[in-house]
């Protein structure tokens, strides 16, 4: 067509006008640290494996492998972890935290169901590492070390591996076939496991085994005793022992009425176990209030549903056959319980003490360089003790005591061992800025209440050791994964691409870098950053 001069123009010719010169700020895609990742003691990249899992189908395996990079126990942790990730989850400020733990469990179970395996991708280093203790921390370390190409031997005192996962956590919370499957996967990497063997002299064991390094994770297996005046006929057991027996397949006799003394998770486990062992009454006696109880709320709630009773602000002063004397307590200004002198009787056929646990560190006697302080072993950032080449983790070092923490220790120590063996220092974790809730644009997230895992009906729960908390079905797991807001990281929602009034976002098609800013045209209005649901874009001043 013959176009008249000036009044008719060619389409798209304005692209000659580079409006990027107007800009005083430019958008940058960030990778901030989501609170779930920040909170995970095992060091999982939760946001990213949820991102994978959101796709469903084949992507479940990718998500599972991403968990497996740091944690070899997704199915176990998906059951027993107290999920600080969820406590930190930004979605909790919007509606309810994402059920990260249930998704992890779903993925872990999928892996077992589908028989997904991991492999050792490194050539053999020819180096031998000793791991003492086949609990979560020791197994975690062994797993990582094996994958790094080292020859690993675990020496475990008990008859079966798993540590507190087997001997502390009742079966109704963690079915043994799940535990066995995940342990077996570690052993399948070629890890040697020596059961029923107690290391009594570390130096000797290392020397005889020609180990180049060691990781110690013997746990805290000794139940703390209280000095209670007790009659000779009184039946007093400690919770650790009770649960250990159970783990070995015994069904200890506790009687019709059982009292449990303590306020931690172990106390609740013991109380719920007592119910399952046939106790008509299972009463937790705790010196403070429910609010101050260290046991996790969900555990307490489930216990209550099963008929476990709680006697708050109570201290046991006397144990008789068939009865306990309980003194009422009151909290002082500092929140510490103080006796009131008021007592009452509580009928009880047996008393289970759940007052804390200690580590048995006698095998370290005489091992030079290792420092023990307040019953735990001092370690550095890489989990190395004062003795070069000897690392420690889990319940025997100063930290929170949980399986998840132990798994994190195991991995950190494994990396430390590997670096030490190769004469390197470990890489510093990059210090990404935290992904704050305020940086999100939560408008874009559909109102999606959390999918809660179904619970076994209460009647069955109080009489069997069947698993109480059930798995999410696949749809619910996917739904839950998709509730993740991907805090501080691009979730490929195309919103920046959509909201730019200047078409200055380029969609690359590359999943790793889905978008680029076209600086030729970006005027720096900031709409992409303001409207990014995930808070994954930051405006940075231009040098002008």
């Amino acid at each position, binding site marked *: 067509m013959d176009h008249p001069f*000036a*009044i008719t*123009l*060619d*389409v*798209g*010719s*304005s*692209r*000659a*006008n*580079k*409006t990027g010169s*107007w800009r005083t700020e430019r958008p940058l895609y960030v990778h901030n640290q989501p609170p779930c990742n920040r909170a995970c003691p095992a060091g999982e990249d939760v946001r990213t494996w949820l991102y994978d899992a*959101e*796709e*469903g189908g084949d992507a479940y395996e990718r998500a599972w492998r991403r968990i497996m990079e740091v944690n070899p126990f997704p199915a176990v942790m998906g059951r027993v972890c107290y999920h600080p990730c969820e406590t930190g989850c930004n979605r909790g400020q919007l509606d309810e935290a994402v059920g990260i733990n249930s998704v992890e469990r779903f993925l872990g179970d999928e892996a077992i169901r589908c028989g997904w395996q991991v492999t050792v991708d490194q050539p053999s280093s020819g180096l031998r590492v000793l791991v003492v203790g086949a609990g979560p921390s020791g197994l975690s370390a062994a797993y990582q070390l094996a994958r790094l190409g080292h020859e690993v031997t675990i020496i475990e005192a008990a008859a079966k591996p798993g540590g507190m996962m087997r001997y502390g956590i009742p079966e109704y919370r963690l079915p043994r076939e799940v535990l066995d499957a995940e342990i077996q996967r570690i052993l399948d990497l070629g890890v040697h496991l020596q059961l029923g063997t107690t290391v009594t002299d570390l130096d000797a064991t290392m020397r005889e085994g020609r180990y180049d390094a060691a990781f110690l994770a013997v746990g805290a297996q000794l139940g703390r005793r209280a000095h209670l005046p007790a009659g000779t006929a009184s039946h007093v057991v400690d919770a650790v022992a009770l649960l250990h027996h159970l783990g070995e397949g015994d069904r200890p006799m506790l009687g019709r009425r059982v009292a449990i003394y303590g306020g931690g998770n172990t106390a609740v486990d013991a109380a719920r176990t007592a119910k399952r062992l046939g106790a008509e009454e299972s009463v937790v006696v705790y010196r403070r209030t429910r609010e101050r109880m260290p046991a996790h709320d969900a555990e307490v709630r489930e216990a209550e549903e099963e008929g476990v009773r709680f006697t708050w602000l109570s201290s046991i002063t006397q144990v008789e056959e068939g009865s306990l004397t309980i003194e009422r307590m009151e909290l002082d200004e500092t929140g510490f319980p103080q006796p009131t002198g008021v007592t009452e009787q509580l009928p009880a056929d047996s008393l289970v003490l759940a007052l804390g646990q200690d580590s048995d560190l006698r095998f370290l006697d005489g091992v030079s360089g290792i420092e023990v302080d307040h019953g735990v072993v001092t370690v550095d950032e890489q989990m190395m003790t004062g003795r070069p080449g000897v690392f420690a983790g889990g319940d025997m070092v100063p930290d929170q005591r949980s399986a998840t923490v132990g798994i994190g220790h195991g991995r950190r120590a494994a990396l430390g061992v590997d670096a030490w063996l190769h004469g390197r220092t470990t890489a510093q974790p990059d210090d990404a800025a935290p992904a704050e809730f305020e940086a999100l644009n939560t*408008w*874009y*997230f*559909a*109102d*999606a209440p959390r999918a809660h895992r179904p619970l076994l009906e209460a009647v069955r729960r109080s009489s069997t050791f069947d698993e109480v908390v059930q798995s999410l079905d696949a*749809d619910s797991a*996917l*739904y839950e994964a*998709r*509730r*993740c*807001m*991907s805090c501080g990281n691009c*979730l*490929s*929602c*195309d*919103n920046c*691409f*959509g*909201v*730019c*009034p*200047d*078409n*200055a976002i380029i*969609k690359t*098609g590359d999943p790793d870098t889905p978008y680029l800013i*076209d600086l*030729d*045209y970006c*005027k*720096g*209005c*900031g*709409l992409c*950053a*303001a*409207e990014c*649901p995930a808070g994954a874009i930051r*405006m940075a001043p231009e040098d002008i």
Partner: protein
Amino acid sequence: MTDLKLYQVGTFAAGNRLVDLELRSVQAHADRANSITSGHRACQGCGEALGARYVLDAAMRAAGGDVVVANATGCLEVFSTPYPESSWQVAWLHSLFGNAPAVAAGMAAGLRALGRETRVVGQGGDGGTVDIGFGCLSGMFERNDDVLYVCYDNQGYMNTGVQRSGATPPAARTANTAPLGPEPGNAFGQGKSAPLIAMAHEIPYVATATVADLRDLERKVEKAMSIRGARYLHVLVPCPLGWAAASSDTIRLARLATESGIFPVFEAEYGEVTAATPIRRPVPVDEYLRLQGRFAHLFGKHARPDLVARIQAAADRNIVRFGLVEAEPRTGS
């Protein structure tokens, strides 16, 4: 789990890597028409540039790219076609300030006479639509011409220095409604609701939308394009310049306008309201007003809570009138 609403960003973001391509917004597609492309001279964060691309890209998709556009004089025209550069990538004609509906009607007639299937979109700002072009618009409605007419409402004459239009809201500061005297800013009154007047013509389709709810906007364009006859779409497009707001707040302001009830989002067929978009997260009008310099005189040292209350009352009336609050929260559609 094919139900889109269960995904993390629901239907509210432009795209979603997990759903089928056709379920994503038009704006999520790398091959969208980009009806108005880069290099235009709109201010940073221009709601109108954004709204025009949203609307026309959706119209282009609905019509298989077979669209011609008549554009009224105004910001949109000025910033997009200064010789020698055009930002349009659609067949586009600008005639005058007050005649875009008639030009569009003529286009539709011409195309029909020539036996072409090409669809016609007329568009303009609020001044060109509710003020100077209103006669032509009403004629287009009354004749039921086969045109989708789109008003990008930024509530004033902006590129000429922010003058008042018939769509300027009460109390707003403009170049000719200064915040002076006992009734600072624009006068309170019934205003001129072009959508309601359009409905009075009982045309097949009338809808309002904003740049804050892309999916809703695109759905309405798509629906409008599926209908023959006169259709009217009124899109709220915040103006950082005229509203004296941050350029990054454009979409947020549109969202707050709807969530406060100030701008009801609804659709109507043949004169009857058929649907209203419920408010999802209700906010008082303060939250909307405070972000805008044109309402600054209502706050601060010489605050006028009485005027804010009047604006709130108008918003509340919209909420009742259009049924903008529903019992069940929206989870996406």
